[in-house]
């Protein structure tokens, strides 16, 4: 979905003169490329000084700039966490964080650059909004929406395209969920690129007469609390599927909503383990987060 983000950020950069981009290494993969080519004077490369970069973004806001801070999820949400918390979120500054390739997506780069924890780390900070778009179209819509709502926001992007989920909706609204597959046997809540995989899994299970409702929660914080309760009450059982630890991510958020409701939710994700230096696909398969794995895990619930 990076290509779509690059194009959208370029368009937004033309429209918004106060927009600046701050990024670290791997700039070619973080969405800055086209903006950087068009507006080199508004683009700042911080190399590996990630913590400094985040606090510097706070400094930019004092001059009325709107900084987009782009980098790997592991570095932005993990490495610079304290700066995100106190320099930006505590002071409620209008800084937008684009974190790329959380979960196992970095594959052979290994555990240091992977991040099964970024959603948990970001959503627990007050004032922070957290978004995980499903595909390029939605990611571009998210970028546009960032200009409509003030405040620090963490967007979880992936190099992978993501299965086309948006089907041309082209609009993102904070705090809203989207039902992308209908069904009453089991409801699967999902976010990010996993939603596309959940849709494929739902289509597979339909052949076995299992009707899976897939609800896409791109907006993780704020969460569509009423929507979650409504969907969960309408089906026999529900699950959350994410490329993130089963602790503290979307699964944790949904479980928090459903706690006290008496409704069951099964959290499917990374089972509290670190990844390893192998291709991402190998990890998806090993932890049953690829389409066949999701099919199997959802089938177990029914």
């Amino acid at each position, binding site marked *: 979905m990076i290509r779509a983000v690059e194009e959208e950020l370029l368009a937004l950069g033309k429209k918004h003169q106060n927009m600046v981009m701050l990024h670290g290494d791997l700039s070619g993969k973080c969405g800055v490329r086209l903006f950087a080519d068009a507006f080199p004077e508004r683009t700042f490369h911080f190399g590996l000084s990630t*913590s*400094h970069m985040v*606090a510097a973004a706070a400094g*930019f806001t004092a001059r009325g700039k709107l900084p987009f801070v782009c980098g790997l999820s592991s570095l932005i949400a993990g490495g610079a966490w304290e700066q995100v918390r106190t320099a930006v979120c505590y002071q409620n500054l209008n800084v937008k964080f684009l974190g790329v390739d959380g979960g196992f997506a970095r594959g052979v780069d290994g555990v240091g650059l992977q991040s099964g924890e970024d959603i948990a780390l970001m959503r627990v900070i007050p004032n922070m909004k957290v978004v995980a778009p499903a595909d390029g179209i939605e990611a571009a819509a998210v970028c546009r929406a960032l200009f409509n709502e003030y405040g620090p926001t963490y967007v979880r992007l992936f190099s992978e395209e993501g299965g086309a989920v948006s089907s041309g909706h082209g609009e993102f609204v904070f705090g809203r969920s989207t039902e992308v597959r209908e069904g009453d046997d089991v409801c699967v809540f999902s976010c990010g690129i996993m939603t596309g995989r959940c849709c494929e899994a739902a289509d597979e299970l339909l052949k076995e007469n299992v009707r899976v409702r897939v609800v896409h929660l791109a907006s993780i914080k704020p969460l569509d609390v009423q929507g979650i309760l409504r969907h969960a009450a309408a089906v026999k059982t529900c699950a959350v599927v994410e490329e993130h630890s089963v602790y503290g991510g979307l699964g944790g958020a949904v479980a928090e909503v459903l706690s006290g409701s008496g409704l069951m939710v099964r959290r499917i994700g990374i089972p509290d383990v670190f990844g390893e230096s192998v291709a991402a696909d190998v990890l998806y398969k090993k932890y049953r987060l690829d389409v066949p794995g999701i099919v199997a895990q959802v089938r177990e619930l029914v």
Partner: protein
Amino acid sequence: MTLDELYNKAALIRAYTLRMLQRSGFSYMGSMMSVVDILVALYYGDLGGEPVVSAQDYVILGKSHTALVQYAILADLGFFHESELEYPGKPGSMLQSRPSVKVPGIRAGAIMPGQGLSIATGLAMAIQMERKQNRVFAVLGDGELQCGQVWEAALSAAHYKLHNLVVLVDHNKLQHDGLVRGIVDMNSIHSKFDSFGWKVFQVSDGNDIDELLDGIAKALTVMRQPVCLICHTVSGKGVPFAEGKPTYHAAPVSTSEIEEIFSNFTHNDDDSRS
């Protein structure tokens, strides 16, 4: 302001700060006292008839634990009513232990040590991008230089040749647990900033406002490099029983200590210094 007026102002700010310390129960008395003159020089000083820090310039307090001093100055300058100074330490206070943008007069706030220079650098980068002349003054502690992020920012500032950025290091030689050189020795702060591409000057008495203003004047003549002023100060300056003493550096102030201080404290137009 004349020098006498500046010395008087420093005494007033010390008095305000000590009262706030006692009322709030906050700590770091010695560390607050050592930085008063630096902040007074910045906020009230003139160079050639122009204020050192104009309305378009910025002061970032990197040694954020001394926020009470900055609050006293901002109240005195009219950014908010001085009654706000009674509330630090009480629920709902606008004035928290560390300075943030929620306080009128603070346009960029550092909460944690090591953050201030990063924020100041980002600000200076934005100003440079706009091709404007505004300046950024960052006041850092010497213990704070143990934070790696300070050096990330220092690299950045030199890389972008930010001559609109001036750092003043409050070099009082102490940190919470004792002498800086006994904990993590900074050795030569001068050679460190110098090797990072900064222009460095020393202010041999960082509690002498006249010397501070001379140092700042020199700093503002430098082009194409950020500047560091190493200001040699005394922790607890202005409180005779606390000057230079590690035990008072991070201490709160008790009621009996306040009474002792104010019984000896003079502040009026006749005295040149208190």
